[in-house]
């Protein structure tokens, strides 16, 4: 869930808040701070827990991003998304309305024939939204992602809940594997120019709980994936959007991969191969190949909802197909996010997110 979210957040908040993505920052990579005093990702910085579960206020943007592939008793597919974005106007905290930290929550619930979504926005400093590292709690309004206090790590057990006008869900998440660091020990490069983020995941959740749908409550179980990422560096002007996948293969192996589309150059790709025991292998630009196969017109724009995904070094050659091609998040900055089924060299389930597909 890497670059895609940087852009999703940056551009979403850009639209909501008129925040123009600052072009500087990237030139100062490695100097420790950009022109406005924000910290920039540092390849030498090791991840520390539980602190890194909490917010990094000296960085411009950050998110807690949960997706889950779920099925009910009849084997019907569902997907849920729960995301809390943080965006800072200044690298600090202040009391009350003067606080420069802004929060945005997205919740989605996808069924094979319906897609529900909701968005919440909040100012920091007043208690309407925020994240605490220990005991872990991330919340905005009545939505929350809270540690159950089991296991060694806060993410070993979580409870998540969100509601919209016509839907809601309440789920328990139990991790049966370790946290996974992407890139080099959690330092994930996002472009050939060197933009990067700190990025780790908990991809081993077993999920159970209830979906609240207009037709009634539905008990479900499935697999979940939580991404944590923070950075201060927006992408370059020529990068137009991303396609990102998190795939749970039936073998117990997992794959995170993304493709950053560029107006002037070939897409930049990156991937992490995750063994069932949590051993992660990062792949740099070019190793992963994502090829759109067919498009669906959603909200007046063509969006690829079937893909071929190849990672030759791991003998992966699969096709992913959207459970519901109309998994459109019509929020401040709209994007596509929904569950997919996997066929080909490997079978399984996963999540697809695509941003930057403009209306024609």
């Amino acid at each position, binding site marked *: 869930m890497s670059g895609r979210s940087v852009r999703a957040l940056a551009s979403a908040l850009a639209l*909501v*808040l008129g925040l123009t993505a600052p072009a500087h920052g990237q030139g100062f990579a490695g100097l420790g701070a950009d022109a406005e005093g924000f910290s920039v990702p540092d390849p030498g910085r090791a991840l520390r827990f539980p602190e890194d579960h909490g917010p990094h206020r000296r960085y411009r943007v950050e998110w807690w991003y949960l997706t889950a592939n779920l099925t009910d008793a009849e084997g019907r597919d569902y997907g849920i998304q729960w995301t809390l974005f943080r965006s800072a106007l*200044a690298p600090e905290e202040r009391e009350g309305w003067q606080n420069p930290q802004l929060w945005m929550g997205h919740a989605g619930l996808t069924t094979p024939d319906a897609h529900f979504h909701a968005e919440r926005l909040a100012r920091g400093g*007043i208690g309407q939204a925020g994240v605490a590292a220990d005991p872990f709690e991330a919340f905005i*309004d009545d939505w929350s992602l809270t540690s159950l206090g089991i296991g060694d790590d806060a993410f070993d057990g979580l409870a998540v809940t969100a509601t919209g006008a016509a839907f809601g869900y309440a789920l328990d998440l139990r991790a049966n594997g370790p946290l996974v660091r992407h890139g080099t020990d959690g330092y994930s490069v996002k472009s050939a120019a060197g933009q990067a983020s700190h990025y780790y995941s908990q991809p081993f959740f077993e999920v159970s709980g209830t979906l609240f749908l207009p037709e009634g409550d539905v008990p479900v179980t499935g697999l979940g994936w939580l991404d944590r990422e923070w950075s201060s560096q927006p992408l370059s002007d020529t990068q137009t959007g991303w396609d990102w996948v998190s795939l749970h293969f039936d073998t117990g192996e997992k794959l995170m991969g993304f493709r950053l589309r560029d107006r002037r150059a070939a897409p930049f790709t990156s991937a992490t191969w995750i063994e069932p025991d949590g051993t992660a292998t990062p792949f740099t630009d070019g190793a992963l190949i994502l090829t759109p196969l067919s498009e669906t017109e959603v909200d007046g724009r063509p969006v690829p909802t079937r893909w071929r995904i190849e990672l030759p070094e791991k003998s992966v050659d699969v096709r992913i197909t959207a459970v519901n091609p109309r998994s459109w998040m019509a929020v401040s900055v709209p994007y596509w996010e929904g569950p997919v089924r996997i066929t080909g060299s490997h079978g399984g389930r996963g999540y697809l997110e695509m941003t930057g597909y403009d209306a024609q």
Partner: protein
Amino acid sequence: MRGVALTALLAHWRRRPGQLATLVIGLALATALWSAVQAINAEARASYDRASGRLGQGAYETLTDPSGSIALETFVSLRRAGWLVSPVLEGRMMAGEMRLLVTGVEVLTAPPGTLAVTPGGADDIDLVALISSPGLGFAAPETIDRLDGADRLPPLRPGALVPPGQMVTDIGTAERLLDRRGEITALVVLPDQPRNRAPLSAIAPNLVVNPAQQQGDMARLTNSFHLNLTAFGLLSFAVGLFIVHGAIGLAFEQRRATCRTLRALGLPARDLMGLLLVELLVLAVIAGGIGIVLGYAIAGALLPDVAATLHGLYGARVPGTLSFDPVWAVTGLAIAVAGAVIAAGQALWRVRTMPLLASAQPRAWATVSAVLLRRQAIAGAGLIAAGCATAWMAQGLIAGFALLAGLLLGAALMLPAGLATVLALGARAARTAEGQWFWADTRQQLPGLSLALMALLLALVANIGVSTMVGSFRLTFTGWLDQRLAAELYVTVADAGESARLETWLDSRADAVLPVITVDSPIEGAPGEVMGVADHGTYRDTWPLLTARDGAWDELAAGRATLINEQLARREGLAPGDPVRLAPGWTMPVAGIYSDYGNPMNQAMVSLDLLETRYPDRPRLSFGLRTDDPEALAEALRADFGLDAAAVVDQATIKRVSLEVFERTFTVTGTLNVLTLAVAGFAILTALLTLASLRLPQLAPAWALGITRKRLARLELMRSLALAAFTFIAAVPVGLALAWSLLAVVNVEAFGWRLPMHLFPMQWLVLLVLALAAAALATALPARHLARTAPADFLKVFSNER
């Protein structure tokens, strides 16, 4: 053939440009007054919609606390319980010389469109600057001009849609400017709330839910005012149509010969009708176009006064500048065309039914049909009766206007019969042959003049009625101000600290210090305020009570009862002794009712101690001061105590400002009044001009019998004066009836107060002189023409040439 026919018909206007001008001016004036009123109303209404739309009020439910303030924590608790609510902090601050309404919104949670301060929407607003320090403020360009140089304000950006006197900004900026940190005045409830949210009673039981429509208050409050304007616009339009009717009727009469010739040459009646209709439509569109331009100018000139009136009466903010709406222009044109068709209907019908071989002589007079006059009079009496019946049986402003309409139209219809009776009496009293001829000839002219005289009657009635109302209002209002503004100085302070300091400081310096606390509270469920006042002789001796129980002031001082304003008493039908709900869960008996002119809201007075017990955190921010030397005390308050100049106001200034507001309130009414009278004068002129040229056959025999032309002209003048005078005499009782309905029915419905009626005979005298002058002026031209008519023209009457 049609082309030739059209040329023949149009040639008439070329020969009589004056008549063409009359027609066009009459229709243009009618359209102008009507359109002006429409434009003003539309502008004001649009401004209320904008104000309520942007604040998320009106369209949305809101939550408020009876104390006037909601804690930030309550907002957060509601959000965390799933309530989609958005905070608004609103208050007033002194910015330079201006009392600025600051509205703080929270853009991340606010309903869409909250920041649409410019017609283009919110897209180009720098939201980061808005929510960062020092923030941004959006205000109308005229407000920004007035705020030039005011300190403490954030950088200002023009927001054409923000009402004057208001600044929209971020809630964080607003709480700093208003010094109300962590406070919220209202929570806007968004539509599409999530499922399963906790009930309000479990999270914030003290909050009150205000239904969405309650915020349409401004539109509702001011509705009556706009209805008043509309009624005036309609009256002007009707008077204008009288002119058009006269001018078109004349043109058709004079073209009878042309029409007969055209028909005789083979032009079908339908084609002739069609051509006349086309001619009429073209004229109507031209006149309507002129009328719209005029109307726009009139509206533009009147709008600042209307805006001041609306602000003075209702506190509504309406910009003083007019925007142009094409729909309005098209509607104005349509009204002009419709009016022209209505006014020409009778004439067109006559052309259609005119027998081909009928005499082509223009008819100067129709037979004075006693039957017709009687029928008109009966219809008029019926209208008056119907108006009275409606007012008696139905309630509300519409019933009031039904009464007015019935009264005015009925009186107008009865006028010709009344005049005919008077003239018959005159003829009976006449001793000489000349005198008898004078009265008989005047009666003969009545049908031709009656429309113009009806217009004059309407204008006079409106004038008498409105000036009596305004005069009564002024007398009552001035007396009331004298009573109500008993304290010599009025002082406002910024906060509780300053308030305490002031009371100590004043202890030895003022004869009496009368603190007043005001709390906004839904009284009987409608917006209102509860005032806490000290127990002091100032109130007991001077406060203007309309009705009260014995010992009302003692009951008030003891905290056992309340005094309410007349508006509240009338709205809720309350009398002394009745219970009144001052706030949810707070009911008190009414001890008395006081008059409260100019206040649109419900208001109640309780003892200061009681209000301070109920609202302990309300500081005393307003004071009335009794002193023998207000000038010295005011100077000391400013110089020694250090209050702002604007924080100390003396009694005389408040009175002056109040009366200014009052005068401006009726400027609009006065202007429309004068315009209507002018239109009526114009109607008489056109009617007389119409008749003058046609009356030669009736005058020739009188001339042949030895009455000189000069004498004839003088008699013409006297005839006009007599008719105007009789019309005026008829107008006085009708005008007084109108004034009574305005004061006792319309005002009570519109504003909630009833005023005693005063009579102003001197004003009537002035009006009589004006009416006679208008009639004389209107007759001067035709009379002069008559005096100079060549004897040969009189002789021609007896030859075959006519």
